[in-house]
């Protein structure tokens, strides 16, 4: 077993309502992301429940490879789209769960929260579960884009260098979660991937119409700098502060 993966709201839906985290842990503790604090191990039941009440399971890299191969065999070239949609649905469901546990833990409304703090708080459980560290880049926020870096993508690291973006599940997850957050349909495109030989994966999130050409640019082989240059050339939506 080499990875921890998929602590999700989808699993909550399958396994029933999660146990309230406050009944299990000290709700006032925020730095709870180390292995033995974030996860609650119930050997008798054979379950691993995380701080937020989601049931987790451990998955090996072989499982990830098998899922990818199996999906590709079933749906062929549509596999990336299927993975993206799975990620999107996961993100939307996780967004609902996040609304609950964030508000409960921090006693403040989501919309009035500092964006970086909010997003970092959302991603920390994923980091603890082994989905990789991330970095938020707001340099294109005035153009209406959010840039995200993922270090150690579980999927890209598993598949290795294959010459094309492979983190469709992540892209869908970001699109789904952020769409839920802003109550509007957003899309996400991976513009740089470890599986393309880069040192980390980079994603851009924005309105659907703005992201559509990004997919074309990536498939045309445009580099990340050129893509961001084009995105930065878009019309500024917010005044400079």
């Amino acid at each position, binding site marked *: 077993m080499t990875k921890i993966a998929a602590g999700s709201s989808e699993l909550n839906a399958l396994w029933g309502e999660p146990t309230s985290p406050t009944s299990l842990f000290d709700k006032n503790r925020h730095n709870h992301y180390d292995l033995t604090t974030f996860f609650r191990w119930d050997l008798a039941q054979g379950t691993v429940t995380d701080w937020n009440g989601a049931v987790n399971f451990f998955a090996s890299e072989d499982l990830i490879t098998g899922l990818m191969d199996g999906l590709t065999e079933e749906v062929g070239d549509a596999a990336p789209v299927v993975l993206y949609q799975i990620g999107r649905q996961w993100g939307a469901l996780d967004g609902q769960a996040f609304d609950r546990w964030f508000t409960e833990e921090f006693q403040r409304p*989501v*919309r*009035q*929260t*500092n*964006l*970086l*703090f*909010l997003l970092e708080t959302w991603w920390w459980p994923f980091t603890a579960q082994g989905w990789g560290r991330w970095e938020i*880049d*707001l*340099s294109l*926020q*005035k153009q*209406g884009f959010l840039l995200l870096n993922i270090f150690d993508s579980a999927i890209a690291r598993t598949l290795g260098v294959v010459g094309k973006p492979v983190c469709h599940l992540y892209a869908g997850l970001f699109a789904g979660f952020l769409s839920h*957050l*802003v*109550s*509007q349909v*957003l899309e996400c495109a991976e513009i740089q991937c470890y599986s393309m030989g880069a*040192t980390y994966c980079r994603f851009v999130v*924005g*309105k659907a119409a703005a992201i559509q050409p990004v997919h074309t640019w990536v498939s045309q082989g445009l580099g990340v700098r050129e893509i961001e240059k084009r995105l930065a050339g878009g019309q500024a*939506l*917010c005044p400079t*502060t």
Partner: protein
Amino acid sequence: MSHDLTIPVRLFFQQFPWQGVAIANGHSSLPLDLHLTVTQFWQQWPWQGGGDWAETTVPTLAEWMTCLGV
């Protein structure tokens, strides 16, 4: 624990046992000017460093939604 933020950032990081870890991790291609003072160094980043970034330069979710035209 306080630190002298007027010294060059290279000297600042050399105080710590994990110095050089960024280079080992392949981040050395980033255009970092390690001759800047610590304060200047952090002010290069989008959140502009310092203890007040959280309330001044980063939007709330509601403000970001305005940026997106929501």
